[in-house]
């Protein structure tokens, strides 16, 4: 349906303009298409998986082409209209905010440990540099941009306190053995399944994920930590609640040897999920239509043994149901209709996802 014939009118337009012209013909609603060019230039074109010659608008044109009716196309454009796209600049801003939140948390800890008066942040701030020596900052994935994070500490965090990845060798581990506070940084936490989960193997319940693996890799020093902070720049409310619940029911850290807390840069409300009855972004009818679209254009080939642990990707891994795209990749928590492309090109992707890591 999207494949329109080439005509004279389009002969002087570039690829983006031509794509936009054709997209406009597909939709009867001006409201849904009027900002597309602006938003493409402002942020969507910066999606790092795109090639130079084929950015947002041509990708959108191809993506819309798979839908069969006007209603489906308009539902798809409604998704795009309320898409949460986090640009590189925005992610860096979140990294800065997380740093500030960490600083504040440490000052609270100084007040607690040194028995200072409740609001004596001045005294806590004076002791901050010294206290920071007890802290180690660890990247849980390359998206954490640890170099950017450290640079924004204004020299407060030293080079050797920052580790780009948590899987390190014995020597490095020993060097950080005196650390009392571990800050685990990541760019995003969707459902939280990657970070911490319970799995049933036969009759046994097994705990797995980045957190237990970190504790295992950092053994025996991990057990002498006073606190572990999980610091995703971006987290969904669903993921936050799930992790908080799992930790509070002692899935991990049964003997309470360390405290656990989540410090985030921004939280994505549960009410942004199309699976939430009180969705704030879309009307109930729009949500139903979007769910229908996710089901009808779902390609089971997208699944593998890892995605099945999070309930599949039809509505996003962990049934997150939020249309979210990050400048460097689309998280699998986003419904697969946005990011999955099959090799036969029957299912084109709007923001193709590169598989980053396994669980």
């Amino acid at each position, binding site marked *: 349906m999207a494949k329109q014939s080439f005509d004279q009118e389009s002969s002087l337009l570039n690829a983006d303009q031509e794509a936009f012209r054709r997209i406009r013909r597909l939709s009867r609603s001006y409201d849904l298409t009027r900002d597309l060019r602006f938003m493409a*230039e402002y942020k969507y074109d910066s999606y790092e998986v795109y090639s130079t010659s084929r950015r947002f608008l041509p990708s959108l044109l191809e993506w819309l082409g798979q839908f069969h009716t006007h209603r489906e196309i308009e539902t798809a454009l409604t998704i795009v209209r309320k898409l949460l796209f986090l640009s590189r600049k925005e992610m860096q801003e979140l990294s800065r905010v997380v740093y500030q939140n960490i600083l504040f948390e440490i000052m609270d800890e100084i007040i607690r440990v040194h028995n200072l008066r409740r609001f004596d942040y001045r005294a806590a701030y004076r002791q901050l540099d010294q206290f920071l020596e007890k802290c180690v900052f660890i990247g849980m994935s390359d998206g954490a941009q640890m170099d950017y994070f450290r640079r924004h500490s204004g020299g407060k965090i030293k080079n050797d306190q920052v580790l780009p990845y948590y899987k390190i060798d014995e020597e490095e581990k020993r060097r950080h053995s005196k650390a009392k506070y571990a800050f685990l940084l990541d760019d995003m936490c969707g459902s939280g399944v990657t970070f911490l989960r319970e799995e049933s193997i036969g009759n046994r319940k097994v705990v797995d994920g980045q957190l237990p693996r970190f504790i295992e890799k950092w053994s025996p020093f991990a057990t002498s930590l006073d606190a572990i902070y999980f610091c995703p720049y971006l987290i969904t409310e669903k993921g936050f609640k799930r992790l908080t619940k799992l930790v509070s029911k002692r899935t991990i850290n049964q003997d309470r040897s360390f405290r656990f807390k989540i410090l985030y840069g921004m939280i994505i409300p549960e009410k942004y999920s199309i699976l939430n009855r009180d969705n704030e972004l879309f009307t109930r009818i729009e949500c139903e239509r979007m769910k229908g679209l996710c089901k009808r254009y779902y390609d089971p080939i997208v699944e593998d043994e890892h995605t099945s642990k999070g309930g599949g990707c039809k509505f996003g891994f962990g049934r997150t149901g939020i249309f979210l795209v990050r400048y460097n990749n689309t998280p699998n928590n986003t419904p697969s209709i946005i990011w999955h492309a099959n090799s036969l090109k029957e299912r084109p992707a709007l923001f193709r996802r590169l598989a980053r890591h396994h669980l």
Partner: protein
Amino acid sequence: MKAFDGHYGIKLGLSDFLNTYKSENLEFVGACGFEDRAPTIFQDLALRWPQAKVSCTIIDLLNRNDPAYRKARRLQRSNIAAIEDVAQKHAWPLRQIKANLYSKSLIAHHQLVKYLLERLRRFSGDFLVDISCMPRSIVFPALWVLWKSNHVRNLVVAFTEDKSVWALESQAADFRSPKYLPYFRERNPIGFSVWIPILGRNVRPIKKIKAYMRFNDVYPVVGFPSTRPIETDEIVRLNREIIGEHTERLVFASMNDPFQLSMKLNSEIDGLRSSFGKDIRIILSPHGSKPQSIGVFLTAVMEQTGVLYCRPLSYKTLPGSVGSSYVYWLKGTPYGGRQ
């Protein structure tokens, strides 16, 4: 008294603050119009600090020149009654001050500033300023007086969100021509100028300023991160004419945390001043969220910038709905003041 100096700022939930801090001598300043949230913080204060000695000042925002006066008065009546009821029950002295928001001249702050200056001659203690319903043309001069006074031990700003619009205000129906806010006028109107407008949902004031004034450069600020993440792109879309092709000049600064916003603005301004010298003119326009306006206030006093603002000409008379309340501790104990 020591105040926020750009290193860290204290933002707390209202109940967290009221449960953990105790003031012996508090001056409460709030404003009362037609919105449902007007008495919220005052009522919470009475609930959690029933024994405190509190002196209350409420600004009556209504004026007969307001085209929607009758409806607004009807809605305001229950708010005033709720405030009077609390004050009476706790034997807290309550004074009401009139503010004229409908004059062509910028005079709405006069009565309050006059009162504050007089009060500070004989009072020394803590101030809790509820800005939920207070227009920025009153907030900025009032906070300036309190920020500068050595008699103010703790200066805490409180804010209740309107659940229907969250941090972003949308009551203004139309706007007057831009004017510099009192105490934030430009000292040297000649020279290289940089305008830093805080963008919001209403594009009209920003368009007005752009039409009336000329600046050498513009760095629009968009709220990010936000408790409602979708708002950032919505604001960018709405203000696309102002942003134009210069999207790379957009500054992202927190929608909900004034200290984060202020720190970000301070660093941008310091960067500009280190390149162009101290004489560079910086003009801020607080047309984003209320918490952002507090951040603008902090930067404006710390960096000595001008604050250019379009006052609302009239308001949509909607009661709104009551959301979460926060406090922003601008000055005092957390920064090294006396406890």
